[in-house]
């Protein structure tokens, strides 16, 4: 691994992200949704005991679970399949750069782009809250946690996107699989769990296994992390229960190990490719 080569890849990729408008579109989408949620949540919420920014953070956490994985998959699915389809992969691989280095370089640029979109999008909501009401220190910390964990959630799905990109037959197939991955992790997983809990009632599964199975999903780990870390956010989102059943390290551990696992899997798939 050489930092020089990783940075070279990241640099070229950063230019591409800017030129293909992904960065502008992603930032715009984040800003629009964050603004909409902040304004919708600015109605009096005194009875819950949460200030305006806290309420916004709670609703933006839910938004982030849907949007960030989508944006990350949209940029990740093309990373290798696109190069292969274009016919530029063979030349790239003739250079003394490792496949892991190529992936890391792309991940660096893409993560940076996600960080820009999340910071600006959620930041706008913070600025808005600051302008029209008081902002508590706890709410500010919750907002920063939201930005940081959103980027981390993004890297999970970047890694999964690279994995699909390296494993699929072409960009079209990778795009289809990316939609499937999004659906499974963000929607179907929770629906499945919900069904099991409904059947199980207050049984052993619901009390002991369910929280762990839930944390194993990075999207849920993201949600739990943000909720467990802030009592007020938990109250505002009404989702304290599952978070309380787990040790504090569970959700962060899940969300931090997922990008590593996804990246290693992507590298293994990439290594098997003949351009």
């Amino acid at each position, binding site marked *: 691994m050489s930092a020089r080569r990783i940075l070279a890849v990241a640099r*070229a990729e950063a*230019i591409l992200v800017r030129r293909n408008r992904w960065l502008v579109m992603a930032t715009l989408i984040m800003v629009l949704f964050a603004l909409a949620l902040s304004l919708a949540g600015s109605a009096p919420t005194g009875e819950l005991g949460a200030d305006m920014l806290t309420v916004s953070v709670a609703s933006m956490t839910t938004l982030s679970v849907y949007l960030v994985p989508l944006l990350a998959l949209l940029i990740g699915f093309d990373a290798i399949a696109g190069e292969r389809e274009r016919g530029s992969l063979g030349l790239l691989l003739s250079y003394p750069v490792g496949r892991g280095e190529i992936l890391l370089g792309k991940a660096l640029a893409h993560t940076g782009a996600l960080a820009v979109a999340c910071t600006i999008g959620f930041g706008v909501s913070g600025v808005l809250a600051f302008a029209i009401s008081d902002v508590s220190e706890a709410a500010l910390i919750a907002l920063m946690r939201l930005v940081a964990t959103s980027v981390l959630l993004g890297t999970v799905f970047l890694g999964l996107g690279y994995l699909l990109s390296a494993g699929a037959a072409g960009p079209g197939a990778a795009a289809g699989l990316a939609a499937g991955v999004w659906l499974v992790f963000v929607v179907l997983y929770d629906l499945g769990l919900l069904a099991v809990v409904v059947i199980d009632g207050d049984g052993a599964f619901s009390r002991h296994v369910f929280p762990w199975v839930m944390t194993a999903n990075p999207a849920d780990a993201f949600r739990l992390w943000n909720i467990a870390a802030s009592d007020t956010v938990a109250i505002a989102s009404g989702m304290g229960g599952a978070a309380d059943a787990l040790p504090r390290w569970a959700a962060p551990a899940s969300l931090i190990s997922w990008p590593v696992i996804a990246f290693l899997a992507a590298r293994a798939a990439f290594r098997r490719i003949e351009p």
Partner: protein
Amino acid sequence: MSDPVLVLDNATKRRGSATVLSEISLDLTAGTRLALLGHNGAGKSTLIKAVLGLTRLDAGRITVCGAAPGSAAARADVAYLPEAVAFHGALTGREQLAFFARLAGEAPKRCGTLLDQVGLAAAADRRIATYSKGMRQRLGLAQALLGRPRLVLLDEPTSGLDPVSRFDLYRIIDGMAAAGAAVLIASHALTEVEARTDRIAILRDGRLVADDTLAALTRAAALPIRLRIRARAGAAERVAEALGGTRVNGASVELCCPADEKMAALARITGLGVAVEDLEVTPPGLEDLYRYYSKEAV
């Protein structure tokens, strides 16, 4: 004699039931320009990809400057121009070249000189998507000049280039060879290759059917020399009878003879005196040679 830069030892590659490369043994020393010829699908590109380590062999061995193909050491010593070179359309020529320079461990500063050398200075800051096919090919050539390659693999480098650019390309190739690089050129442009390479290798259906200098291949093939005699008006019949050739378009007679009988044939022709108006001697060209080697029964 220096160690060969590239060694292929019984290299074999199968794809499904087809054998795309069949027990190919070949070596290439520093400063040599080797032309790799062969029909479409003969295995030229596959051979180059195997040397790059992009495809794995099923049997046999390849070494590049003593290292395994595709290893970091081998890749640092090799430059490659793919047959259908493609880049990111959204990058400018300069950005794309600077990217490759950084990967090759060279200062991006040299990119300006290289772009100038391939005639892209004016288009350097335009997006590659706006380049013509030939301009893209030249950018491909510029990136092959990066670093200090000891082995240069060019897959149909002249495709899409205009005649002047082709000439420039071969001058650049000569320069690389003179600087000590071994150059392998896969090509269909026989006349160019004939004049600008030191050795010729011919692939047929994945088998190496020829690998030698042009002179040696010509000698080994012992192809006939073609003599075309133009007879004076009315004398064509008599000339054809006397020489035993075939008549073509009325006034001319064509005759083929082995190289070592050329002088005797010339003597007989001059013996016909004024009946002969003109004489044209055509030695077998690379095209005849190519035909001979790529059709020869195994």
